């Protein structure tokens, strides 16, 4: 066990990705956690915890993606977490890719919505993550994601 409290950045876009991220909260017990998502309105979900708003985008909006990447870069630079964890989608992809380059450890939990194949962001972000998880046993494989259970 580390002696100092690890700092976690838990980041996801809104909707289902955010709901899944919140369900992992007990895993962050004893850590300093900063939550980040796309809407101010989600702040109430993590009352009492650190909360940041980032710019969300999806791959049909290229300018939006650049803005999103920039907002996540500035967040990472400011927070300097030990571990970055995400359940997706685009913001998580950026956070894991950039977080990895900045020397932070990374965890990708692929959305339970991806029951047949990994998401595009998941396959790319997961491959370079330090811990790459799928929530479906039939999608786990050597050299690919591991399954440790699901968020239900």
């Amino acid at each position, binding site marked *: *066990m*580390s002696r100092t409290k*690890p700092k*976690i950045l838990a980041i996801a876009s*809104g*909707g*289902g*990705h*955010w*709901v*899944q991220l919140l*369900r*992992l*909260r*007990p*895993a*962050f*017990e004893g*850590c300093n956690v900063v939550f980040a998502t796309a*809407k101010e*309105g*989600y702040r*109430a*979900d993590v009352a009492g915890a650190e909360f940041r708003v980032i710019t969300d985008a*999806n*791959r*049909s909006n290229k300018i939006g993606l650049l803005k999103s990447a920039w907002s996540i870069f500035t967040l990472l630079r400011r927070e300097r977490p*030990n*571990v970055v*964890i995400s359940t997706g989608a685009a913001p998580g992809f950026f956070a894991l890719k950039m977080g990895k380059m900045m020397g932070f*450890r990374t*965890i990708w*939990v692929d*959305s*339970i*919505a*991806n*029951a*047949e*194949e990994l*998401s*595009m962001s998941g396959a790319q972000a997961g491959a370079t993550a*330090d*811990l790459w*998880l799928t*929530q*479906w046993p039939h999608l*786990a494989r050597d050299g690919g994601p*591991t*399954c*440790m*259970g*699901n*968020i*239900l």
Partner: protein
Amino acid sequence: MILVTVGTDKPFDRMMKVVDRWAAERGRQDVFAQIGEGGWEPRHIPFVNFFEPVEFKQRFAAANLIIGHAGMGTILSALLHGKPILVMPKLARLGEHRNEHQTATAKRMMELGNVNVAFDEAEMLAKLDLVDRLTAREPIGAYASGSLVEGIRNFIWTGKGTPP
């Protein structure tokens, strides 16, 4: 109250048209919809484009039944609130989503537990007539359980995951 929701992403006109038609034919006054932005607007159902997260929760808590797209936000919220749910998958080939995952999600969630699925408009129309008979299981707990949480915690503290 029946809450109809298409999620935070694109509208879902195919489903909204069926539900709107059903509400009109059956004279249902107890339906409220969240339809997204830029889509077709129902004629017989009151609606909003989006809910703020707080209102979304209040609406879920107050509803007896959820009808929605097969998104995990919608499905998990229904399970958390212990509400019966009927979903219809959005299809990427019809431009309703960016990839074709919702059909698989719907099938798997149907196998796992208390999610009812209509795969097309005809099935939705048929199942809408049975919705008053749908019941939900006990709400799921607020958090993920056991092995996944443990595995992530171990990784955070020791740098290693728990082997499966």
